[in-house]
């Protein structure tokens, strides 16, 4: 049972992530009054990419990407999907926070090695954006951990079963709002899509990726999407005991993100940081203070 979970949950995450990517394209197309590609289109792309002979820029170019995807895969072992969380005993939220570093860092190493300034610009934006949303995000997470008095994400989920969704319980309301405000940035959707801006910096970090590398990068993107949404659902919307319900919750969050993506133009990176560090941070800070004052 346990072994199966170990293999099952990363695969499930990949599948859902890729499905979300496809769904995103389809939904965006429908919003734009188009027919849109088939939902399986990302899968087709990945198969095609895997068969292409790409140029490699060196060892770190490969290793960084592998590291990035592997790091993201490991996170999925820690995140409860419904009740499936095979490694939740080996460390809690803190480990997840740090594992979330591996993904961007590996990507950064890899695309840095590609020796293209567009990639460097993209990475610098990516790290800055992460810095931007990490400030309110950390405040939110700390408020949660303080409120539930635990660092284990499974416990946070199970405690929400008694108290209701943390987003709608009293001291955590503000944190929930802040989280919702930064969610588009965490998912990397449109108002905060400066990193991969294809028209501006030739898709940024991905500029030199082709063939299998781009396939890995796509999978990494899919996983990032999955992790972002799953984290939100687990922390704020009470997770779920049942994988299906969990998936449905994820779908709702996902649609929220897509709608935001569809209607907003792109912010400049400094505008993005300024936004993220102003209202969401203030609200999250107030939330943390609220938790500290009212909490046990």
């Amino acid at each position, binding site marked *: 049972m346990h072994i199966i979970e170990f293999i099952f949950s990363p695969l499930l995450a990949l599948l859902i992530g890729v499905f979300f990517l496809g769904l995103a394209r389809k939904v965006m197309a429908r919003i734009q009054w188009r027919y849109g590609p088939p939902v399986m289109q990302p899968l087709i792309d990945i198969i095609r*990419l*895997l*068969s*292409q*002979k*790409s*140029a*490699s*820029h*060196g060892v*770190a170019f*490969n290793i960084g990407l*592998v*590291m990035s*995807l*592997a*790091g993201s895969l*490991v996170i999925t*072992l820690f995140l409860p999907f419904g009740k499936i969380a095979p*490694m939740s*005993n*080996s460390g809690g939220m*803190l*480990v997840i*926070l*740090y594992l979330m570093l591996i993904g961007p*860092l590996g990507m950064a*190493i890899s695309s*840095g*090695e590609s*020796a*293209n*300034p567009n990639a*460097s610009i993209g*990475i*610098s934006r990516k*790290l*800055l954006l*992460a*810095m931007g949303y*990490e*400030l309110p995000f*950390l405040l939110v997470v*700390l*408020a949660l951990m*303080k409120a539930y*008095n635990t*660092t*284990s994400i499974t416990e946070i989920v199970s405690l929400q079963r008694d108290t209701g969704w943390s987003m709608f319980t009293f001291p955590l309301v503000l944190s929930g709002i802040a989280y919702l405000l930064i969610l588009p940035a965490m998912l990397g959707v449109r108002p905060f899509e400066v990193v991969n801006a294809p028209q501006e910096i*030739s898709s940024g970090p991905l500029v*030199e990726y082709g*063939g*299998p*590398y781009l396939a*890995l990068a796509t999978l990494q993107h899919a996983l990032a999407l999955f992790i972002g949404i799953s984290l939100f659902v687990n922390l704020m919307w009470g997770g779920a005991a049942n994988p299906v319900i969990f998936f449905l919750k994820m779908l709702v969050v996902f649609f929220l993100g897509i709608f935001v993506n569809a209607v907003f133009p792109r912010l400049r*990176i*400094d505008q993005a*940081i300024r936004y993220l560090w102003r209202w969401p941070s203030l609200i999250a800070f107030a939330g*943390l203070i609220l*938790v500290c004052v009212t909490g046990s």
Partner: protein
Amino acid sequence: MTGMEILLLVAFGGVMLTYILGRISSSLRNTFAVVLSLVLVVIIALMYDKTGETIFYRGFFGIPMVLRINSLSWIFAMTISFIGCLSVIFSLDYMKVKERTSFFYAMLLLVNSSMMGIVLAGDLLTLFIFWEIMSWSTFLLISYNGGPAIAAGMKYIVMSFAGSMAMLAGIISIFTAFGTLQISEIAAGMSSASSGFKIFIVIVFGIAFGVKNAIWPFHAWLPQAHAEAPSPFSAVLSGVLIKMGVFGFILTMYVVVGLGTYMSLGGAIFSVRSILLVMGAITILVPTFVALLQDDAKKLLAWSTIAQAGYIMLGIAYGTSLSMAGGVLHFLSHVVFKSLLFMTVGAVEFRTGGIRDLNSLGGLIKKMPFAFTGTLIGVCGLIGVPLTNGFVSKWLIYKSLIFGSPLLTFVALFGTWGTVLYSYKLIHNIFLGQLPEKLKDVENTPLSMKLPMIILSFTVLLFGILPGLPLRVINKIVVSLGFDSLNISLWGIVSESGMLNMINLFAAILAGLIAVWLFLRIGARTIPVKQDDNYAAGAAVPRDRYNYTVKFYDPLLRMISPYLRDIFDTFYMKIADLTGYLSNGIRKIYTGYVGNYVMYIVLFISLMIFVQMKWSPW
């Protein structure tokens, strides 16, 4: 004669011998220095798990001077000798092109020996004497390069000297209060002292150790000193030397003042503990962002050293067994990865002919893969990526802080993101991107530099995957300082609110890596290309201009740099200026006109007569 006396004898004797041998033959000296430092490592390793005290000298007015060893001293001594040894090995090639190498080696060994003296000291007098020897020998080494190093050395020695004078005041007040300087006896006397006295002691020692440990606001000397010192010594400086401040803090707060007293010292909000914690947090936050502004590789690392000192400070000042273990472990981690980073940057500096400017490097991964790997591992440790030692220690610190003071935890966690930013800047601007034309002929890292890098990289990963190895020793320290014992296994730790299992994580990440690698292998073969074969909107890659390094995080920096002025550095410089100005004014008393001088004599007499007439004190 105990092991400690032999150790110090060997260490200090070796210093002299090294210098003398340097006069005869440089290769002989190098061999001797390496052998000596290895011998020191072995001697200290043999002292594992011993405790004891010996009086080794009574020549100082009959005050007994004591050496003592316990688990705390042992782990510090081990680190010092280990890093000292590696830095000597690293110097072999680095110093080949420099002048006055005998002086350098002798001073390097002297610094190491005096640091060993500090950690083995069983009384405050011995501590102070070795402390001062360390201070001035460090001063000589920092100034070694001349040029900008002169100002750096000056700043260091003045601040450090001010710190030691504060410490001297503290030591002597203890001496006058209790009539003894032996640490074990002071601890007994301290418990009955008034709390004002305790606070005084904590403040003066805090200044001394804070300066050495570069805690905000005493950090002003560090960036320049680290940047201008020779790189092998920068490794020692950043790795172990400033950690003498950590040692001092532990000694003051938990041994001299005592755990129970420390936790309740001072008023509610202005308690010593909370002030130290806040200082630690500021030390994390501000220098992390200042590091982002730096364009000099070693200066960047220097600011990061300050920031990491803040983490250690948070750990040891919080005062639970978990945080204490985290603080000491982070000290150990920081020693390893920061020495590694200084060494790799030093290797780059050595091979590129002294370039430290991040804007003019790039693409060196092709030329110096070893240095890149070392930097990558070091940077991962610095950030605290899982499977490196930095992760475990930071995890311990967060874990202990998280429920007690979420705001401090927030600062520490947020500092990590700053760390990611400047670490990536470091590694990207040196090793990634396009290789400039002028660096086409850079050679690979020499063997004497590779060896320490390999050992240190290995240590980073080993302590990251099997944190139980250092934690077992640290647990002994924690228990000896009066805390509860921790529940430690080889691969992690079980605390009351969660556990850490690094071996599982290691297995998972390894499996993930293998799986992804296999997946990548399924795909089509990849073709290695040169850096010139690169997307430039269809054009051929322009030579020497196709790189993005200058103003790497410009949007952020433009936002934050107005807030990052180093007020305290300015403040200290203002004080220095003021002193100079004042001195110049006072100098004018001596006008050079003899009539005035005779007038002074008359005035002196008349003043005394006036005083006598008015108040008649005599």
